[in-house]
């Protein structure tokens, strides 16, 4: 019997759950939040999301072609990055700014570091921070659309609405008059400005379902539904999001803030369950995950409440990304029998 046989080290059976299956699950988990956003913000939400995904996918294709790296779009990670970026942007984001975000996420935050698995920063958050902090166009991202604005428009009006024409259909939270032409109007920003936000139950409900001026991924309830799916599929666990939420709640109580508002506002749910749990950029050990989550919680709380800007979650995760590997090294578990 002469056959050419493959010789390789064990094990000779492996799970069918590869990278693309995991990415597929993350995409599935984000779909409810996207659907809710489309309901509240109309096709603006879908349009921005489509631009972001197209941008990340094309960027990855061309950058890898130029750098002579193997084709990798089939792992689905570029789609996930595009989707996460879109969910962290307002629905009024101009298309060219969304596309720029996608390019920065893939070309700079991912491929420049060596591609998937070697990036230090969460690509979507890196790009978001780039757009919000380092571009001169950031005021365009601080205008938020009023939920269900499309209900007051006729079908023909909707057809002729320029979805990405910022300023036309921008209002602030709960029909509160805009302070001036370009100031921000998210719940967090209002809270920071010292105005009474709300303490009624309907306010919490609005925050929970996403009926609020904010980013596309604003529906905490839909995001939690997706997170439950990822927990069920064991792609994430509760160590990171749990410690972020608990830290936020404790600090809020300690500093006299409304803990429920602090948890539901400012993209904390999106960040805690989908950004901070990003495999590549977060620690692996259980103790490490808890330290990482507490770090994000503390950082977020003080930046958004006492810092110069309100993007607390975003900067907190990016800063903790840097130390993730070190956290792992110094939180190695006790060995079996050791």
């Amino acid at each position, binding site marked *: 019997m002469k056959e050419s046989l493959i010789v390789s080290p*064990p*094990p000779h059976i492996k799970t069918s759950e590869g990278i693309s299956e995991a990415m597929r699950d993350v995409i599935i988990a984000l779909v409810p939040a996207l659907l809710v956003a489309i309901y509240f913000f109309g096709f603006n939400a879908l349009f921005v999301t489509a631009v972001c995904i197209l941008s990340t996918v094309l960027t990855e294709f061309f950058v890898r072609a130029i750098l002579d790296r193997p084709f990798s779009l089939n792992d689905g990670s570029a789609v996930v990055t595009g989707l996460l970026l879109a969910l962290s942007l307002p629905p009024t984001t101009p298309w060219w700014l969304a596309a720029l975000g996608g390019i920065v996420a893939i070309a700079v935050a991912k491929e420049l570091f060596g591609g998937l698995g070697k990036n230090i920063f969460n690509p979507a958050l890196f790009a978001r921070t780039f757009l919000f902090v380092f571009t001169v166009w950031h005021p365009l991202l601080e205008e938020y659309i009023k939920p269900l604005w499309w209900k007051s428009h006729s079908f023909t009006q909707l057809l002729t609405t320029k979805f990405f024409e910022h300023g036309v259909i921008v209002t602030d939270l709960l029909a509160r008059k805009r302070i001036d032409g370009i100031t921000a109007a998210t719940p967090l920003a209002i809270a920071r400005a010292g105005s009474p936000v709300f303490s009624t139950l309907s306010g919490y409900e609005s925050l929970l379902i996403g009926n609020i001026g904010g980013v596309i991924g604003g529906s905490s309830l839909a995001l939690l539904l997706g997170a439950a799916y990822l927990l069920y599929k064991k792609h994430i666990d509760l160590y990171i999001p749990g410690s972020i939420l608990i830290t936020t709640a404790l600090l809020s109580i300690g500093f006299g803030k409304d803990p429920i508002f602090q948890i539901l506002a400012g993209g904390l749910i999106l960040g805690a369950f989908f950004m901070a749990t990003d495999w590549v950029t977060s620690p692996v050990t259980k103790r490490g995950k808890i330290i990482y989550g507490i770090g994000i919680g503390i950082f977020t709380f003080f930046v958004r409440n006492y810092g110069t800007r309100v993007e607390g979650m975003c900067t907190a995760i990016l800063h903790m990304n840097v130390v993730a590997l070190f956290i792992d090294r110094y939180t*190695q578990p006790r060995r*079996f029998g050791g």
Partner: protein
Amino acid sequence: MRLSSFQGGIHPPHHKHETENKAIVRAPLPERIILPLSQHIGAPCKPLVKVGQKVRAGEKIAEAEAFISAPIHASVSGIVESIAPHPHFTGAEMMSITIIPDKNQESIPFQEIPNPEGEPIEKIKSLVKEAGIVGMGGAAFPTFVKLSPPRDKQIDSLVINGCECESFLTCDHRILLERTEDFLKGVSLVLRTIEAQTAYIGIEINKLNAIEAVKKCIEASGFQNIQVVALETKYPQGCEKQLIKAVLNREVPLRKLPSEVGAVVQNVGTILAIYEAIRFGKPLIERVLTVTGPGLQNPQNILAKLGTPISHLISFCGGWKDGPPGKVVVGGPMTGFAIANLDIPIVKGTSGIVVFPRHMVPDPNKYWPCLKCGKCADICPMFLLPNLIGYYSENERYREADECGVLDCMECGSCAFVCPSRRPMIQFIRKAKAQIMAQKKKPMVRG
């Protein structure tokens, strides 16, 4: 039923149904028997026969003087054709005795002991040594050494590994069902030999009929001090330290042997071999193994003579199925060796042969960077961080791999199984171990 288990581990698909209901069948004699001079951990044997010499089945044909070693016996009667290097399942070539079996198979007279219960312990140990018995679960450590634990250690428990946690393999399962009483007599014998109080037979719950058969036989035949422990079906339940944790809830310290916590572990096949060696005087010349896999026409549990070439067993199972073969694994799919040459013989530690068709074997060189998903760290039964070890080994940072405890890894392969990036973790781990050991040896070489 409360199931005992350990922390960590994985749930690979069982693939036991292909063979678990098939009774053990005897394989016909092959044209050639190839017996490697080392079928155990320890010093290789020196041949006691010459080319052209006639040998009988059961005759000792090779032996070593070293303490940790096991003699080798002719598994058939016939003429010694050659004593030369022959491919071995580990990939290297090894000195092997080749025998051409003759027509009228005769064996040496075996010294039966109808009532081994009364025999002195030292005699039993020496008979086990003479019979060439080694651990038959795959590790192939000489058994008489394990029967003589250090004097300063109080051994109270004998743990029998009936987990068969490797996918596809069912030979131990069949032994438990078909040879229940002989097996239990062997357990009693070993329990007395190591002077322990209780024997615990750990069996995974996916072999419910074996659990019941053993329990029934213990009651019916009145075996004393033997308990059956139902275990969760989880890999690597049958790894020595994990099994002791599950059965006795004791943790064997790092780099220490089970005797440290008062336990001796033996595998089901080994127990049967011990019983046959003592009761019937039969040296270890044949064994039960499972020849199976999706690339084989008719998977079976086979009683085969040691030294039977794998090609012969594959033909006996009807040959290839589902296109050309892609991989032939000696042992279980999680820890076994992939072989390139089908003339390689089965040896004392061969518990199975698993055949995968070509289309089911992915390119082993195709893998991706670590995504730090942490799945490996979640399931590592030694509580290591395989992701870091793999990363350091890949980048030749061996000192850091050592700090991460790569030397404590037992290479169960669970991390590689769950890795979504398909990283060859065992390859990384072995590379790091070899480099670290080489580094550690250096200062000891003087001059």
